[in-house]
């Protein structure tokens, strides 16, 4: 089974994220880029399926030049090859246009299965897997906490608020995985060395047959009109104990309907 894993480079999970003043997109210059944490689970799941039942794992990344660091990490973990969709015309694409660009890029890679993390830690939209399924006509198997691959079929346990649903579909399918589906491996030294020799294909808009007016800031259906920093935390209320501290506390808790 040939698998494509969509991997995104995001600003360091713990870094303070900013929007740039000029075009109100995520500022990726000033912070360290890392592999979206949830995509690590997707890569690991793809590698496990490959190790159990054969096939090839291809990493697909859309992002600026710098995103190649993240691609290299996925290759170091054990993916076989990578496709990097990189074009200045893609800058500022929203979820809808991103799904269009990814769907076009997917057409260039033969595959049975696409695996993604359930969301990215920067945009946190969580809609790309569903949009990709819609655009490609593949089955949508999202929020998987367990993935089983059969002969031309994929079965998942879809995480819900109260438990899980078992969902099964024929390939091609789009699977998104939730955190803790597995424990992602760390690149070994051998993996790091091997990654350098693995094929990395670069696609521009033209290579992937993407119409430039349908992507980027201008092509996006949504735009950021205005943004402002989160207001600083308000100072708390100080209760001074003058013999009645206990009852004042009780009053406060009662006013918040906590007691």
């Amino acid at each position, binding site marked *: 089974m040939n698998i494509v894993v969509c991997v995104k480079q995001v600003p360091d999970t713990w870094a303070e994220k900013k929007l740039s003043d000029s075009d109100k997109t995520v500022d990726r210059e000033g912070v360290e880029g890392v592999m979206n944490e949830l995509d690590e689970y997707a890569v690991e799941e793809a590698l496990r399926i490959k190790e159990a039942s054969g096939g090839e794992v291809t990493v697909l990344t859309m992002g600026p030049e710098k995103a190649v660091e993240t691609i290299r990490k996925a290759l170091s973990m054990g993916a076989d090859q990578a496709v990097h969709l990189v074009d200045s015309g893609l800058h500022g694409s929203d979820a809808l246009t991103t799904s269009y660009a990814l769907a076009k890029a997917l057409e260039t890679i033969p595959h049975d299965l696409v695996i993604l993390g359930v969301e990215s830690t920067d945009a946190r939209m969580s809609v790309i897997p569903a949009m990709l399924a819609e655009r490609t006509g593949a089955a949508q198997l999202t929020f998987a906490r367990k993935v089983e691959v059969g002969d031309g079929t994929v079965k998942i346990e879809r995480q819900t608020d109260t438990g899980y649903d078992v969902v099964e579909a024929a390939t091609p399918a789009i699977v998104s995985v939730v955190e803790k589906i597995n424990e992602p491996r760390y*690149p070994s*030294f*051998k993996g*790091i060395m091997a990654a350098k020799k693995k094929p990395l294909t670069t696609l521009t808009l033209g290579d992937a047959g993407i119409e430039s007016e349908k992507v980027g800031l201008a092509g996006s259906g949504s735009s950021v009109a205005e943004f402002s920093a989160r207001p600083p935390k308000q100072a708390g209320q100080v209760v001074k104990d003058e013999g009645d501290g206990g009852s004042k506390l009780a009053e406060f808790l009662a006013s918040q309907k906590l007691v």
Partner: protein
Amino acid sequence: MRLSADEDALAFGQSVADLYKDIADSAALRAAWDSDAGRIPGLWARLAEIGVLGAMVPEDYGGLGLDLRSVLPVLVASGWNAVPEPLVETLVGSALLAAAGGSAAKQWLPAIAEGAAAVGLGLGPGQLVFGAQWADVLILRDPVGDAHLVEPSQVTMNPATSVDRGIRVAHVDWSPSPATRLPDVNADDFLDVAIVGVAAQLVGLAQTMLDLGVKYALQREQFGKVIGSFQAVKHQLADVYVANSFARPVVARAAWSVATDQPSSWRDASHAKFAAGRAARLSARTALQVHAGIGYTYEHDLHMYLKRTWSLTSMWGDQAWHRTRVADAVLEEE
């Protein structure tokens, strides 16, 4: 002559740093300190898996056949987290066994690479054996400078106490014999490898304590301002940064000298340990001053790093010993 780590070595170090972040953070270190075993459960096996333990084991024995330069970033990362494992001991032990070859190499190197065996190392100048209580095999120096391979069952071990609960060290009573002697190796050459290994850990450790100090200086307020805004505080932290920045290339140089077998290896190793030790001590002292009393309490992470600084700076020769070695080398040249 390239002294700094190459791209692969840096990626290797990053991979290990990520592993430590996930399973060997300060909470895991504290749990190790509070446990009888003193180690982080499962960490050794993971280090073997990603190739750290076999890094200096030749490829013929299931390792990667790298030299000290390529594992330097890994050792710096191990310093950040004050990782409580016999890492330097085992890496140096594997390099020594690889040089000795023969049946000892055949017996132990594959096990080391797989994470099935840890090494305890007693190469002097003192009589202490580091990692002894954790070891499956001991490599010891005799009075004339030969290296010997001894199994823990063949010796009497008298555990020594350390302020650092993340290391194990013991006095070992043993008798060298032709049967235990490893041929063709000079124990002192590998003492230099160990010295540089610890120097790399000290550089990482100095960075951790500086980061803690800077973070606290940006939080703690006094006179209505964060204390990091006062020159008396920020200049001290800047001095630590400078000292550690100056130590890094010295350590890289020493790793190069050791890896390429330069005649100046011993001098460069001592220079590295002295420079890194000085940066780490300055970092420890400054971080403690910035934190004030709270930094000394057992409950604060800095406590563990302070003690690690003390244990590493006195391991494989203290500051005075290394300074004297460098002085001797300089004076000899004149």
